[in-house]
């Protein structure tokens, strides 16, 4: 049986943990050091669903300037979007929403999961329950993840891997 290939784009403000989440999911590793991504980093991971195998191609976009001219070429052919916000920085939830709207205007609606990352720092979270509640209205799935501990990282990616358009 031919393995299905699916492209997933990581979107979100800078330093929210997009690269770290991919690193956790693909390599089961984590680094404290912040190395800002330029352009796009591409990784792949084979995942086993109930009835088939899917090769996920993860395009990890730079958060610094995600709305620049290159964005559309990065987003082409995307099956789903992993939208990431940083629970310790409230404004990243707003930018996640903005980035998502921009992406949809470029390529149309795609299955999306929203990750509120850095759950291990929950005591320092600035996002409130109300924020999360309103976020649930525009993302199919909201997960509180930690790239550091790995909490819910697999769940979030798998939720997207199995979703049909």
């Amino acid at each position: 049986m031919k393995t299905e290939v699916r492209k997933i784009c990581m979107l979100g403000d800078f330093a929210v943990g997009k690269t770290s989440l991919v690193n956790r999911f693909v390599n089961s590793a984590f680094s404290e050091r912040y190395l800002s991504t330029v352009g796009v980093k591409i990784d792949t991971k084979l995942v086993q669903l109930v009835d088939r195998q899917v090769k996920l191609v993860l395009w990890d976009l730079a958060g610094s300037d995600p709305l620049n001219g290159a964005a559309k070429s990065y987003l082409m052919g995307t099956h789903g979007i992993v939208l990431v916000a940083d629970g310790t920085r409230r404004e990243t939830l707003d930018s996640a929403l903005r980035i998502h709207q921009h992406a949809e205007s470029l390529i149309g609606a795609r299955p999306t999961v929203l990750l509120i990352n850095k759950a291990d720092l929950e005591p320092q979270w600035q996002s409130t329950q109300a924020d999360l509640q309103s976020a649930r209205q525009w993302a199919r799935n909201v997960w509180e993840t930690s790239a550091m501990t790995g909490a819910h990282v697999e769940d979030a990616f798998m939720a997207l891997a199995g979703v049909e358009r």
Partner: protein
Amino acid sequence: MSQLSEDAKSYLLEQLLRQRPVLYLRIAKGSDHARCVSGDPLHFGLVLAADDTVDVAALTIGLDPSGHGLQVSKAQIAHGASFDLHQLLIDGERFLLLIDVDDLQREVQQAQQSSNEARLRLDEMSERERLLHAEHKALRESSEEMQRHQHVQSEFVRRLSHEFGTPISAVLGHLNLMDLPTTTAEQSQRSLSAVRRGVAHLRQLVESVLDQARLQNNQFELYPGVTNLATLADDFRELHLGTALQRGLDWHVSLDAHGCVEVLIDELRLRQILLNLISNAFKFTEQGKVSLSLRWHDAVLTADVVDSGPGMSAAEQARLFADYGRSARGVRGTGLGLSISREIVQRMGGTLRLADSTLGRGSRFVLDVPAPIVRGQPEDNQSLNQPQQVLVVDDDEDLRLLLVAMLEQLGCAASAVAGLADVRLDAEPPPDVAVVDMHLGRLDGSVVLQQLRKSWPNAYLLALSADSSQDVLERSRRAGADSFLLKPLEPGALSLALQVAVQRRAAE
């Protein structure tokens, strides 16, 4: 460029290739694989398979198959070099061209890195500033609070010295009098009773100050116990008979217990509070009457203390319960007593208020405290006037059987379960009454009570326990119990508790 000779072109190409590694791939028709034409796939993080092909699915997945030229810039695969991705369409075939841009990339990365880190630091600083601001505000508030507290404290000390001063000077004065050789035996006798009164007053003041301190330091404890209502009423009648006679006042005590004989309450504290109210009434009243009416109804004990004294002005009423407040009339202070009484009553789960007061006519204080029935004598001694559905939740089987038997004797339709899991919360109609043991093995009865209260807002909930400590009483109350039954269960108490439930229902 067209002016360049072929030789120059190939030289230029050679130079460019030396500076910038490239990878040139030919995509096999209709597949995700490509054959390497030139360059090193590994340099870009791509793996050369055994059959000399490279899996390029990760790159081609979003590409338009008919696009010619630069497709994606600044891409990177795993630990490979950064590249710009071009697609070339030549003679109906697709080629991928990856050009190394690592050197450019590195500069951009460094600039972006420091800019991002600076923004993060800025965010962090403004967050810290916000926190500092909040902390500063909290500090200022607590310092204001402390100043207020200090003011209250010094006011307290000022009042205390006044309160203590009066009886102390009276005691000393009378002792001196008794020492005088000219003092007659009769005078001595009078001085002696004045000294006794003064000392009793001082003792009461000391008690009040201690209570005040205990309340403030949260070391105040209540000890609910079985209390006989008739005995309580009789004791008070006796206690003030002498004073009433001496002062020429009417003194009347009544009890309307609706069949309740004994209740669960901190008797010492109840007596202390009533004594305080009654003593004040006697103190202020020059003529007419003072009365105490006790009433037990619906698991609440109500005490009315009425006098025909001078009454209070609105201003006096407003200050009455204020901390360390004191009646302005120069009669011995009652301020300490009243504010403490009210606080104790609140701890008991009740209220103490001045129900009305009219200048020249008198005052009426009303005390309401929860008083679960322990023993009762149902007035009509008949079965209940309405059939009731009663549910028992108790983990002890023998007790379940006993309770169901008792309830059936009283004419109820009773059923019993061992725990929350066996309760049918969707029962239609829900039971009228539920009796819940506070100690269900590992499960806390208050959890059950809470759930029942939520599911059956109109049911009458009775907590049941052999432990009558204030803690258990309070927990059951907070969980939504209407009243409390003490084990071992006395049939009269159960019957009266159920009657209350019926009355409640009828009133709804």
